[in-house]
């Protein structure tokens, strides 16, 4: 028995809908007869076709928020919209804004939010969520038992996005109530850190470096290797915290979740924080001088060796081929 309606909190950047949103729409279609999107932003018309092509019949759009961060106004808007018209569930991607809105909404509705989910299934008309814990070694299944709508946060790349045959979603205006002084935080400017090559999300190959590189300057060889392979460079949390590379490079629980065809981990020991973000890769190659490093337990090919020797040799061998 399918649910009747699920809302998906849609996110987009410069007219392109986020991959996670399309993944959620695809899953929502499987769980419910009707799927609608909620969107914070002024360009709902521009993304209505993309949302519709993934199954959304309608998009409830707030319009321009005047620089306000999404959490406060969007939670209030959603709380208003569900009065008399409540969906069975509202799905959010685990993103910066998704977590903010879901958190604020759970307070508004005084309802639990189940986070970090990687799978959703139905048990009658209740939703059961699967959440990996302890670095993905254990799966916990949790069922919502309270009132609907359920508030659900889902990790990126939990589902494959598939287009439906749907036409553009109808754009409907979503009323944003006055939320007073709590809505005082403002975004003034965006700063984009330039990076070359494919994004971590989309790359077929990801090459990541960790503390085993020894010093910040040595990260260059990760960039060089990535470039030769047409790969995206990534990093463990340790070297992001140390300031060697920007946060946007981070793969792991707090960074990006990646599932490329090949993941190469160089000088990464394999803290659970990191493994959560990459163990879904189809093939994993690990290079580390510590034979006991946990990363080897999930590597399809493990090279017990010094990254400062193996990586330059790889770069040289690949350079001579091209």
């Amino acid at each position: 028995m399918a649910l009747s309606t699920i809302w998906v909190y849609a996110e987009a950047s410069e007219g392109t809908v986020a991959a996670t949103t399309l993944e959620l729409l695809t899953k929502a279609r499987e769980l419910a007869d009707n799927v609608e999107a909620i969107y914070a932003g002024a360009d709902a018309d521009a993304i209505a076709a993309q949302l519709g092509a993934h199954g959304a019949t309608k998009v409830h759009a707030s319009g321009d928020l005047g620089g306000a961060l999404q959490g406060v106004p969007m939670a209030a808007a959603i709380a208003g919209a569900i009065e008399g018209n409540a969906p069975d569930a509202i799905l959010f991607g685990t993103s910066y804004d998704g977590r903010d809105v879901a958190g604020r909404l759970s307070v508004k509705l005084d309802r639990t939010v189940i986070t970090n989910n990687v799978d959703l299934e139905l048990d009658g008309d209740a939703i059961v969520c699967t959440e990996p814990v302890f670095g993905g070694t254990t799966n916990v299944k949790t069922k919502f038992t309270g009132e609907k709508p359920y508030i659900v946060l889902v990790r990126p790349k939990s589902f494959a996005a598939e287009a439906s045959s749907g036409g553009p979603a109808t754009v409907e205006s979503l009323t944003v109530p006055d939320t007073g002084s709590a809505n005082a935080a403002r975004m003034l400017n965006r700063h984009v850190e330039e990076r070359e090559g494919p994004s971590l999300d989309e790359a077929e190959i990801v090459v990541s470096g960790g503390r085993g590189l020894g010093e910040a300057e040595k990260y260059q060889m990760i960039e060089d290797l990535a470039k030769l392979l047409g790969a995206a460079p990534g990093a463990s949390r340790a070297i992001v915290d140390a300031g060697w590379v920007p946060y946007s490079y981070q793969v792991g629980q707090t960074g990006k979740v990646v599932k490329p065809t090949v993941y190469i981990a160089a000088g990464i020991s394999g803290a659970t924080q990191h493994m959560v973000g990459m163990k879904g890769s189809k093939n994993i190659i690990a290079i580390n001088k510590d034979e006991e490093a946990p990363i080897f337990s999930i590597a399809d090919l493990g090279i017990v060796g010094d990254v400062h020797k193996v990586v330059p040799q790889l770069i040289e061998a690949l350079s001579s081929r091209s």
Partner: protein
Amino acid sequence: MNVVVCVKQIPDPADPGQLDPETKTLKREGKLILDESDSYGVEMALQLVDTAGDGEVTLVSMAPNSEVGGLRTALAMGAAKAILISDPALSGSDALATAKVLSAAIKRVDDADLILTATESSDGYTGTVPEQIAGLLDLPSITFAKHVEIADGTLKVQRQTDAGYDECESPLPAVVSVTAGVVEPRYPSFKGIMAAKSKPVDEVTVADLGLAADDVGWAGGDQEIISIEPAPAREAGEKVVDEGEGFQKVIEYLENLKVI
């Protein structure tokens, strides 16, 4: 400038975590330590108070068995005092119940200008508690701060994004969650460690905070854990010791996959 920092005391991440099959809660009976993610907020708070030239840092923590191990670490770094909520009724609390308890404790701190948290704890990592606290206190918030400063009473934050960062600002009081790496946490000095032993820790119960027992713990959440199972394990493949030819193995592997 008075800053409240929410800190979590967690089992040592070096020991693998375990769920109690009976209660379905995380086993937390051993010694607890300060979640490393929270050391950044503590340091940030100390620096902001120092820059302001007045005020103090108050810690708020929820932990079983009157555990203060992690609080003493943060007090040794320089926080002035702590509020500890410890109550058997809290076992099984979800993120919203946790936020209700922490926000009720924060209300006991006079003139709090800023509330700092980590972006998420290292053991539970729901990542929703900071925003829930802000919602319960009806305050503005900026999450995922990678840089924080206060100029002329206005909070200025660089907020992490997928592409880089957003420059954000908010009036005070406000709630801010800080990323690891926002500042370099100091090591407690010997003097700090000695001083921490006599700093006040105000221990309170759920009832002291004016909350009902069925607001928190298992009773407070609209959810039920139905199964806990080992995830399908990923098998280790071939492991070779590099003797100068290791890179060749990698090349062959990539060739077989036809990605080069």
